[in-house]
């Protein structure tokens, strides 16, 4: 679709989205820790999304929820995490910490462990927002690494300066 005015192509998960192409949500396969000395979990999940917007406010964030089986075989949440998609074009690696909501009392902790119903967010997108977090207690456990290749269109034409391509790769 050709546009007469320059437009900005962004990746958006929450915010001011005008249009979106590609899958905005996805579920990966189930992976187990590798048998070798590295003990890593690999998903290798492809992401290919294109969005369009007119304002960088509400820049896209990718929200991850990690689930896994507990001792009794129930699927419980193992971590939530979110990171902004980088906006300078190029290749970027991001390693984000994952956290899990914590029960308030010890009895509730034991009950949720026993019943297999751990505290979780009803909408994982709250992880991408800053409001309402001050009353939650979480435990941080684990990290997830993401790799982004970002292409933008017409940001410079609209007057935006994104700076140099990000060269800080987190070596993890």
């Amino acid at each position, binding site marked *: 679709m050709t546009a007469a005015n320059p437009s900005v192509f962004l990746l958006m998960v929450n915010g001011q989205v005008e249009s979106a192409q590609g899958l905005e949500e996805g579920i990966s396969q189930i992976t187990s820790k590798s048998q070798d000395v590295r003990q890593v979990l690999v998903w290798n999940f492809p992401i290919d999304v294109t969005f369009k917007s007119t304002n960088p*406010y*509400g820049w896209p964030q990718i929200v991850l929820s990690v689930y896994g089986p507990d001792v009794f075989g129930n699927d419980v949440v193992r971590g939530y995490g*979110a990171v902004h998609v980088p906006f300078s074009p190029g290749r970027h690696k991001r390693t984000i910490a994952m956290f899990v909501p914590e029960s308030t009392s010890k009895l509730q902790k034991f009950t949720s462990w026993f019943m297999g119903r751990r505290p979780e967010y009803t909408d994982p997108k709250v992880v991408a927002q800053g409001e309402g977090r*001050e009353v939650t*207690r*979480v435990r*941080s456990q684990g990290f997830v690494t993401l790799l982004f290749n970002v292409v933008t269109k017409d940001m410079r034409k609209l007057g935006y*300066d994104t700076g140099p391509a*990000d060269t*800080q790769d987190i070596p993890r």
Partner: protein
Amino acid sequence: MAEVHVIGQIIGATGFSESSLFCKWGIHTGAAWKLLSGMREGQTQVDTPQVGDMAYWCHPIDLHFATKGLQGWPRLHLQVWSQDSFGRCQLAGYGFCHVPSSPGTHQLDCPTWRPLGSWREQLARAFVGGGPQLLQADTIYSGADRYRLHTAAGGTVRLELSLLLRHFDRYGVEC
């Protein structure tokens, strides 16, 4: 008017002696700056790290400023507090850092400090908790009237902020 987008997150804190930490943050700007969208202040969740000593908050920051001048460039000020299992909060450190002025992604390490009281107050803090706090938060990010303070170092807060500038070259400003 030139515009500045500050997009990023408060990643977490390390080096504090307490383990369940949360952070109250705010952005202070000069008179020439106007906040167009975003929350100017907030509070993160309380995190208890299971692996290592770094508490992770991953608190998103998304702000859109319009400015007529460079004076009063935004400063991000932080108060790190610890919460124990009974829900009592104790101050762990104050810190501030200027929002970076060049566009791109920046990793910031913000050191923190906390006020020390008399030796009586320090002893009480070790046993009972509490301790002196600042009455006015603007001492954290302003240099006035600091000479009376006696402080000790706290841990470090790690942030990742990305700056997106608009129309700065129109006014001849080099960033």
